[in-house]
């Protein structure tokens, strides 16, 4: 039987990152993916000839410098582009732009409110402080209480001591950030409804909470995690791989192959082989069995446990625990090819922030309504739309003079209250998105060469992501850190020996690109070292 040190199921970004780390450590790794191209949700794909964009991901975001440096991706040709971090356009014609430069950014805020421009300094300080506290927690497994009584106890006692040393105001700040609704948290800093909505929208994208849901404020801190976030005094910038996610995937593939490991596409894993409660290898759809010391799954937690294993091989209660993990689709992806650069007459000419993304939003109460519609499974009426035109910052992605548009529509239910999505309701959503785009960029509708709408159900059907939840499991606090993917897990290791999770279903979730993959590789290696 073919045998490898490690098998990674799924050639998504995290799977590739995990494989690259393990290959660099000298392991013989085999990456298996059922699709004909690597990349998972970031799979590069041509919507029209010459127009290359990631099919299910937005296309922004970069690997943390730590990972890119560890894997030496620069040597394999990977470069990142920094763009100013986006503009929010409101239905009433107002806009708020993000600038990296603090002076420019404060001037931008002062257009809406002088006091808010002053409050920015305080807000930025608090966000950076929180991000700095958070970053080390994300770069290693969250200690689950399952890790042995005394080791766990020691760790928690030292955590208690560290908490005790926080000044009361530090502890209060931390509590506020992790428990308050985003709207209420922002009220403590800003007064302009546009500034508040601009920041609030960023916190809602991809999440399952509304602006008034408790604990939604914690999402405000994620954009600040990248080491350069707001380093120049302004808003965090947007990172984009040069050449799109295709380049990112290609660099990771090169890194893996350079170490002598292999990637096999069109190889679907149907079963995981278990003997004596230990994972021994995998079985492919064609019946071939491959043995491995460890198996690392890049699939979501539900797919990993519920469809790859025979349930009787799983420890008692695990099926129920995994079944209880909440995964719900919350966004639709819209991809467009445009035959010219859309114009934005409402924005200043040459505004650099457009390259970092465009967000179409309403006021905070409108966001709450959109959220309520999602909960009631009503087709969105006033959705939040996140738009990226990656070809502005990187013209190589589209034929000369032409452009790409990648968008997320937030608060799109998996299924409607009166049944599944129909062609009419899908067309209605497409028309709504086009109309919203046309409201800030008149004439854009005449420039569309190709357009497709991918609903949560489509995403689930095409790549097997449960519920079409691109976050791989809701990111509320009861499903983060030690609770991710389920309570007591808190890392890549699972209750099954030799089986690890490297998808964003595992800590630290979807917020750190490649983070779950890097953590999984680190855990595999430390366990091997412990045994060796």
């Amino acid at each position, binding site marked *: 039987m073919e045998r490898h040190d490690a098998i990674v199921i799924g050639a998504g970004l995290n799977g590739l990152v995990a494989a690259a780390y393990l290959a660099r450590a000298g392991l013989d790794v085999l990456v298996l993916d059922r699709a004909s191209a690597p990349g998972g949700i970031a799979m590069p794909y041509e919507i029209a000839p010459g127009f290359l964009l990631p099919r299910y991901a937005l296309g922004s975001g970069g690997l943390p410098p730590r990972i890119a440096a560890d894997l030496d991706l620069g040597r394999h040709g990977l470069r990142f582009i920094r763009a100013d971090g986006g503009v929010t356009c409101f239905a009433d014609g107002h806009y708020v732009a993000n600038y990296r430069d603090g002076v420019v950014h404060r001037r931008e805020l002062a257009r809406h409110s002088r006091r808010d421009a002053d409050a920015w300094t305080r807000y930025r300080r608090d966000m950076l402080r929180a991000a700095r506290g958070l970053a080390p927690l994300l770069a290693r497994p969250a200690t*689950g*209480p*399952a890790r042995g*009584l005394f080791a*766990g*106890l020691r760790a*928690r*006692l030292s*955590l*208690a*001591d560290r*908490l*005790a*040393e926080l000044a*009361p*105001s530090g*502890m*209060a700040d931390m*509590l*506020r950030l*992790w*428990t*308050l609704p985003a709207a209420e948290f922002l*009220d*403590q800093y800003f007064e302009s409804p546009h500034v508040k909505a601009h920041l609030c929208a960023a916190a809602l994208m991809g999440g399952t*909470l509304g602006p*008034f*849901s*408790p*604990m939604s404020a914690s999402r405000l801190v994620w954009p600040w995690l990248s080491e350069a976030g707001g380093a120049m005094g302004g808003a965090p910038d947007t990172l984009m791989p040069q050449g799109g996610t295709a380049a990112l995937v290609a660099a990771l593939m090169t890194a893996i192959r350079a170490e002598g490991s292999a990637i096999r596409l069109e190889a679907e894993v149907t079963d995981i082989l278990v003997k004596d409660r230990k994972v021994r290898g995998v079985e492919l759809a064609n019946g071939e069995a491959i043995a491995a010391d460890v198996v690392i799954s890049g699939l979501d937690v539900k797919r990993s446990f519920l469809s790859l294993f025979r349930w009787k091989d799983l420890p008692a209660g695990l099926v129920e625990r995994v079944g*209880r993990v*909440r995964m719900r689709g919350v966004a639709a992806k819209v991809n467009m090819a445009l035959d010219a650069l859309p114009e934005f007459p409402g924005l200043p000419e040459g505004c650099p922030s457009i390259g970092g993304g465009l967000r179409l939003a309403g006021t905070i109460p409108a966001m709450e309504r959109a959220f*309520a519609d999602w*909960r009631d499974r009503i087709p969105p009426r006033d959705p939040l739309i996140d738009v990226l035109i990656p070809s502005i910052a990187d013209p190589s992605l589209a034929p000369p003079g032409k452009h790409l548009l990648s968008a997320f529509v937030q608060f799109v239910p998996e299924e409607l209250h009166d049944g599944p999505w129909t062609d009419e309701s899908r067309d209605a959503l497409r028309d709504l998105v086009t109309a919203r785009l046309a409201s800030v960029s008149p004439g854009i509708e005449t420039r569309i060469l190709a357009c497709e709408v991918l609903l949560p159900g489509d995403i689930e059907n095409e790549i097997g992501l449960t519920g079409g939840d691109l976050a791989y499991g809701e990111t*509320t*606090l*009861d499903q983060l*850190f*030690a*609770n991710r993917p389920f*309570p*007591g897990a808190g890392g890549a290791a699972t209750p099954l020996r030799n089986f690890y999770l490297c998808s964003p279903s595992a800590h630290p979730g979807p917020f750190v690109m490649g983070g779950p993959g890097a953590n999984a590789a680190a855990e595999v290696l430390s366990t091997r070292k412990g045994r060796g």
Partner: protein
Amino acid sequence: MRRSGNTYDVIVIGAGHNGLVAAARLARSGRRVLVLEASDSIGGAAATSEIVPGYVGPAVAHLIEGFPKRIERGLKLGRHGLRYAARDVPTVILNPEGEHLQLPRNRKEFARFSKILPRDADAYRDRVALLRSQAALIEPMLGELPPDMQDVAAMRRFLRRIVWRTAFSGRAMLEGLMQTLPESIGDRLDGEFESPLLKGALAFDATLGSAEGPYAPGTSFRAVWREALRMQGQGLRQFEGGTGALCDALASVVNSQGGDIRLNTPVERILVEGESVAGVELADGMAMHAPLVLSAINPRATLIGLMGAEKLETQQAMELCHAPRPGSTAKLNLALERAPVFPRLAAEHYGARLLVVPALQALDDAANACREGRFSCEPALEIHVPSIADRTLAPEGQHILSVIVHYVPYEAEGGWTMKREAFVQKIVRTIAAFAPGIEDAMIAGEILTPPDIERKYGLAAGDWHQGDLRLDRLLGFRPSPSFGRYRTPVAGLYLCGAGSHPGGGVTGLPGWLAAEAAMHPEGSRK
């Protein structure tokens, strides 16, 4: 010290139950106490009110579950006339289409319960066990002063104690708590139970008193907190003579120790000399002097309204400046000319706490409607007929029906004046679905919407709890980090209301602990 008519050892502002507990404790320690109450009666929201002559109903709170035995004993309330009309009151969920469901308190009741809900019975037992073990972990914290957050050593002791306790209490405690703290009660119940009735009732208990829906993150924790308060107390019980009997007994303690309680005496401002409190000034301009002032009214009204924000540092004032969270609970009291008849309700359950709850989804809709200023077409109610166990409340053969309504907006769409009638009718219709003919038995009624509660009992925005029970407003963070241990920046001025730890409910604990803090000011204790 000079003991003129205007000089006391302690002045307590507000004669609600927390103010009176604090006053009684201080009076018993030998201090000369003056209690000042703005309205014409004592008790605040824990009072008894006369609906029409001869019919006495509980003004707001109707059943007591968190009043600790040690306060009752410590103040010798039994000697001052406190009696119970009913102890260990059961909870019954009214079922519109089948057998009513009593939440079991013992083995025999559990057998019945599992006959009605065979598939949920074991899950219910497990849930109660888990809830108790989690509550047992935090219960001791409710009955003591929160640790001083400035004191690193004290904080370390406090946090280490939690870690030790969780490590050795089994059941993977910390793991469970870490999930329970942030999750929503709806998600938790959906994962455990099948019966919509049971899920609705458990979610109702966890969300009552707050405007959050059952699917809001953080609501699961409230069930634990409430269970912990229950453990501090002595189970669900009813005082003889109505809820106000508690305050009467407390007042009697104060009076017997030589203290004064003055009604209709609003305080105009709190007098501060240098860094210390000097007393209060009344609305008529008269000054009352005392080196110690405790305020049971809400923290914002105390510190900004009565004392003045200029005595606070910017940070402290900012913590208080947020608008109060509007209350979301209404109260309806009905006087009935005959006993209500609930078909299918066992005779021994007439005195029970009766819950009318819709399924979780509808409860969530009700919360959303409330946020938008409407009320749900499926209201969630807690009904109690106090006159079953206590015959003194209504004339012979007649009764009182006391109803707490969950998810009622503070600002009704179109204004309460327009909506009040429709609202009452909706509630009465809902009750009539379980007790047919109740409309005809009504002879009088009293409705307290959140604005009415604000007006009548002075509770800001009609919020019974003087601030929501939120994860960032617990222990030393309640009402806010700067005022977490009942103390204020002014020496001798203390907070003793529900706005302080451990919060709302008729527990007496904020008053009891504030008195403790006042008797042992920082520094004097070694």
